[in-house]
């Protein structure tokens, strides 16, 4: 029995593509269709209405804007920090570089909920961060806004996303070849000039991957704002979850979810364009 190579490839891909189709593509397409439906007597009823989107634009635009700003802050801090760490690992190879890399890899897949509640414990008035700052004599009284605030959400999600952002950037930095760096150094370029004109432009792609992930996951998170954000920090994920679970209004929740994804897409396209402009290689001029 001999199968043609093309058929053999097709058969090999079948299980994975079936799982993808049945449990990702199909449910996502169905959820998109549901955004045009409505709820009648607590039941999903097929329809073709844009009223869910109209309600989303009427009621949730503020929450969406707030969420995008927080996610943007998280993505910027995470990407910058991850670049600095990757730079340390790649070019400084100091004592801590390899330990940091190992820690990032080991904690990448573990403890989403544990990390969030650990920060909840650490940032509270009795928490270890305030205790440390008091013992160091930096503050007299516990800082009350560390927990149940947007700052707590930012700290927690930067911590969670950091390993995910570090790995693509490090891969990008490893692809930067040594020769142009040495040439620039021999010609008297300062380290920051080399970084700006040679290193950063060459890892544009991986910077964008890291930024995208560090933006998208926080933009749709609802657990972190729920646990450490306090009553003032409602992000769009909280509203989506509440629409589905609390108010049993799947069509409106779905419309809000897709509007959020679309808004995130627009932010990412803009970020990609800006990054391209800012990091155009300078040596051609």
């Amino acid at each position: 029995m001999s199968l043609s190579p093309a058929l053999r490839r097709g058969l090999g891909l079948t299980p994975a593509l079936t799982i993808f189709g049945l449990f990702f593509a199909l449910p996502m397409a169905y959820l998109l269709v549901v955004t045009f439906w409505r709820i009648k007597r607590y039941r999903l009823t097929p329809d073709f209405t844009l009223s869910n989107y109209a309600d989303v634009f009427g009621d949730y635009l503020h929450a969406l804007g707030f969420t995008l700003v927080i996610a943007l802050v998280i993505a910027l801090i995470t990407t910058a920090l991850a670049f600095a760490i990757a730079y340390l690992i790649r070019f400084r190879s100091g004592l801590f570089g390899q330990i940091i890399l190992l820690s990032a890899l080991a904690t990448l897949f573990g403890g989403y909920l544990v990390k969030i509640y650990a920060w909840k414990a650490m940032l509270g008035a009795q928490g270890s961060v305030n205790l440390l700052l008091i013992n160091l004599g930096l503050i007299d009284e516990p800082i009350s806004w560390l927990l149940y605030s947007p700052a707590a959400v930012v700290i927690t999600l930067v911590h969670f996303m950091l390993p995910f952002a570090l790995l693509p950037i490090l891969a990008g930095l490893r692809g930067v070849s040594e020769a142009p760096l040495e040439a620039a150094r021999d010609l008297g370029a300062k380290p920051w000039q080399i970084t700006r004109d040679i290193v950063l432009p060459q890892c544009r792609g991986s910077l964008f991957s890291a930024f995208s992930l560090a933006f998208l996951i926080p933009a749709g998170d609802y657990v972190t704002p729920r646990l450490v954000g306090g009553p003032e920090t409602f992000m769009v994920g909280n509203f989506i979850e509440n629409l589905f679970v609390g108010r049993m209004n799947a069509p409106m929740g779905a419309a809000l979810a897709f509007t959020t994804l679309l808004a995130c897409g627009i932010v990412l396209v803009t970020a990609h364009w800006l990054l391209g402009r800012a990091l155009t290689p300078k040596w051609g001029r």
Partner: protein
Amino acid sequence: MAAKAQAAWTAFGAAVLVFMLSPLVLVVFFSLAENANATFPPGGATLHWYGVLFDNADFWKALGNSAIVTLSVGLVSMIAGTLAAMALARSGPKLANGVIALITLPIMLPPLVLALALATGYSSLGLPLGLSTVIPSHLVFTQPFVILVVYAQMAGFNMAIVDSARDLGAGSWTIFRTVILPIIRPTLIGATLMAMAVSLDDFIITYFTIGGGMTLPTMIWGMLRKALDPSINALGSLVLVATIGTSLIALRLTRYRG
């Protein structure tokens, strides 16, 4: 000047390490401390909270469910992911990159959206929620890890030895079992362990697709929502040890270094 810069980088590295690890270290630390509020001073060392956890019938139920889900998801991800990675390794890079971009989409999007899409789909089909709905829901975001890692190894695979085996008359299955598998086995096991760690730690997708049941992460969520339960640190530590331990073994086997 150079020494000063190096000292600044070392200080930065130390600060990053403290930032990354201190939350996890503190959870384990307080799981072994007498102070029920998990604040300083910690009091003496004790295994009391682990005892409380092990006396809780819910813990054993959650552990059983987590074990069933994690093992099933690991097995199916390994088979589906490896078959796909091998098929992609024999395709052109254009097709391979396209399929990989598509199939990794579920790990790029916020899990809440996929969780709600799955929950809405299951409820419209009238499917009863339980472990049988959790397992396929996990596969969609665990198989990309297997595909990515195994494909990366297969891309550098020396296909000449496969051709030699075929010229000598070996069938496809014999070639896989005696030539390909021995070479990729560590990578395969490592990639499967990564998929299992991701599955074991998942909270959001599980929460929306399990119905009334419980896994270890959804049990943590339940404890967080009730009044202070100090054994949560013991449970959190066990989840951390399981996922980090699995990841470390996986890293060793796959020689993955970022």
